[in-house]
């Protein structure tokens, strides 16, 4: 009898899992249906390799993701792994919410394969890697070939002077403008690209920590773009355009040139014939250099996570060389692994605009100062308001630059004093 009882107990023990089930919470923020599908496939692979661990995927709508995640985290409802856009990194890392990934990266063999830029942007805040980037978003110039042909132009502009001249020729066509200006939300990248390319430098600060934005070069840069608008080379209502209006303007040929990231291709291909648009490197400024902006996104682990080792394994499953390639097929972002640049995915003609930019020593990919505290407010609120005022002629370009510089100076001081 005791023997049978012992057997029974053994059988019971064998039938229960060796350890209690663990649930990891993963939050996606730049969600789209196709991406979420890929994410779930990667997660399924992870779950198969980690019996007993379950991953709960939450896909936030991009339009409200920022508010939502901030509210959740502030209320103590904290996920384990989160997709981290560059813009948010300083907020979460700066406030001590994210896990420093140094130790994990040190013992991870695939870290060797990451390109230098990926390792650099991972350490944006306090020189510690608070995220593992999965891809880059580099701006380039999309141009509408059909409209260009109509205006008698055969190739995209190589310099800003040419861009203005082309825009002027296109503006003579009825109902067409040259440049799709993004005067509304998300316009800061455009201001920085024109500003830096005219100024011939993408430094936002002098060595003493004061902002360069009131220097004559930057003022000339912002003035250049304001004049482009005032001279009718961008649609008049573009003063309030956000992403959708810009893209709609470009699709329809209402305006023939736009600065965009590679991921805009996904939306564009559905609506335009491939022979009707092209992607060219960002035009060069007076000093023969171009400064397209470079964005990135990656994965972070929250410090409050109770299962950090499992969370790191999940990050590796998502962002190891294989997972990363599958993921970037959906995101359209440029690769973080040196080896991936040769993948057939990036070999199409359309990607050549970006690889030409990356190969050209005179094209300087420019990182936005996203690490500054309060950057989101700067970009989404202050810049939008003041640049619209400047475009509408309510304030002078210099006044606008002064407002921006004042905010950046204050922010830089805060950063210097801040706890890191």
């Amino acid at each position, binding site marked *: 009898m005791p023997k049978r009882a012992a057997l029974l107990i053994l059988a019971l023990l064998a039938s229960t899992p060796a350890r209690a089930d663990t649930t990891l919470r993963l939050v996606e923020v730049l969600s789209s249906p196709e991406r979420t599908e890929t994410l779930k496939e990667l997660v399924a692979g992870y779950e198969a390799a980690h019996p007993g661990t379950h991953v709960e995927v939450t896909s936030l709508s991009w339009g409200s993701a920022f508010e939502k995640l901030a509210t959740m985290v502030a209320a103590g409802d904290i996920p384990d792994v989160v997709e981290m856009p560059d813009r948010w990194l300083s907020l979460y890392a700066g406030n001590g919410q994210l896990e420093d990934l140094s130790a994990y990266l040190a013992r991870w063999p695939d870290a060797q394969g990451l390109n230098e830029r990926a390792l650099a942007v991972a350490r944006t805040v306090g020189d510690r890697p608070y995220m593992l980037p999965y891809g880059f978003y580099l701006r380039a110039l999309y141009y509408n070939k059909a409209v260009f042909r109509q205006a008698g132009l055969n190739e995209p502009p190589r310099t800003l002077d040419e861009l203005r001249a082309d825009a002027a020729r296109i503006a003579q066509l009825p109902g067409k403008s040259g440049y799709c200006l993004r*005067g*509304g939300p998300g316009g800061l990248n455009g201001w920085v690209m024109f500003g830096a390319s005219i100024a011939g430098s993408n430094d936002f600060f002098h060595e003493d920590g004061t902002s360069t934005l009131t220097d004559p070069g930057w003022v000339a840069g912002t003035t250049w773009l304001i004049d482009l608008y005032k001279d009718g080379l961008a649609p*008049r*209502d573009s003063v*309030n355009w956000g992403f959708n209006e810009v893209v709609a303007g470009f699709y329809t040929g209402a305006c023939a040139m736009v600065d965009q990231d590679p991921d805009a291709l996904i939306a564009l291909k559905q609506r335009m014939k491939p022979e009707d648009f092209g992607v060219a490197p960002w035009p060069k400024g007076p000093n023969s250099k171009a400064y397209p902006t470079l964005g990135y996104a990656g994965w972070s682990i929250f410090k409050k996570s109770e299962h950090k080792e499992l969370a790191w394994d999940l990050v590796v499953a998502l962002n190891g060389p294989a997972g990363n390639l599958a993921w970037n097929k959906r995101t359209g972002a440029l690769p973080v692994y040196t080896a991936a640049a040769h993948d057939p995915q990036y070999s199409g003609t359309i990607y050549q605009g970006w690889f030409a930019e990356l190969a050209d020593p005179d094209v300087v990919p420019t990182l936005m100062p996203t690490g500054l505290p309060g950057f989101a407010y700067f970009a*989404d609120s202050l810049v939008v308001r003041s640049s619209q005022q400047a475009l509408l002629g*309510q304030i002078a370009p210099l006044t606008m630059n002064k407002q921006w510089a004042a905010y950046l100076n204050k922010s830089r001081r805060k950063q210097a004093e801040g706890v890191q």
Partner: protein
Amino acid sequence: MSRRRLALAIEPYLYTAPSLLLIIAVMLVPLLTGLSYAFHDIILLDPLSGDFIGLDHFRELLDDDGFWTALRNTVTWTATSVALQFGLGLALALLLNQAFPGRGLVQALTFLPWAVPGFLSGLAWAWLFNPVIGTLPHWLHGLGLLARPENILSDPHLALWGPIVANVWWGIPFFAITLLAALQSIPQDIYEAASIDGAGPWLRFRRITLPLLAPTIAITVMLRTVWVANFAELIVVMTKGGPADATQILSSYIFSLAFQRLDFGYASAVAAVLLVLLLAYAAAVMVLRHALTEPG
């Protein structure tokens, strides 16, 4: 007898208790918490914030151009929207209060906008105002109202009209439904008696309809005003407060303070000011309503 008295005395409280308890727990307590932020330095996600700072936020307000612009826009936005919603809603209710063939269908169709979620309404109107994907600019141009077929949402002098039109479209059914329900409750024999006494339609409207609708009008106009003043969805969707703050109202300003600056303290201070202004307005309407409904 005394038990019956007691029952009578507590009766009104029994009727109000369920609503009141729920409202206190789910709305009032969070509101007081939210208002207390106005006196604290509360930055979302900043572990170092949270100090009591007294009236600092309110002092900051006095010098904040963004606040004053938004306050002015709030008044224009609210007054224009509510006046048009009410005027057109009343007209629609009076039209629908008469029998005609197909009335049920017309009524249901004219009420449909109310069933469209606010932000989808904003999106649909933003499409219509966009000259690339909507017809309105071309029509307005054709009518000679616009010099060029352009997006009024991008013109700082006209932009506020975009969300106002969307809001009027969306809100007419609200007044039409309430006023129609109230109209239906007016006994017909009063009108018949007045007709026999020789009162014409206008006199009957002024002497019978308006006074009997007055309580409904007062309460709906008041609440609608309060809601519209707080209603940022259309503006956030259509213009994000731009261009150059031309359409920023207090509640959209509060939203951007809270979720772009993450400054919940300051956002709460602005909300507190809005609350006080609306309370003053509501008190005025209540006094007026009292004067209208109390006989003599």
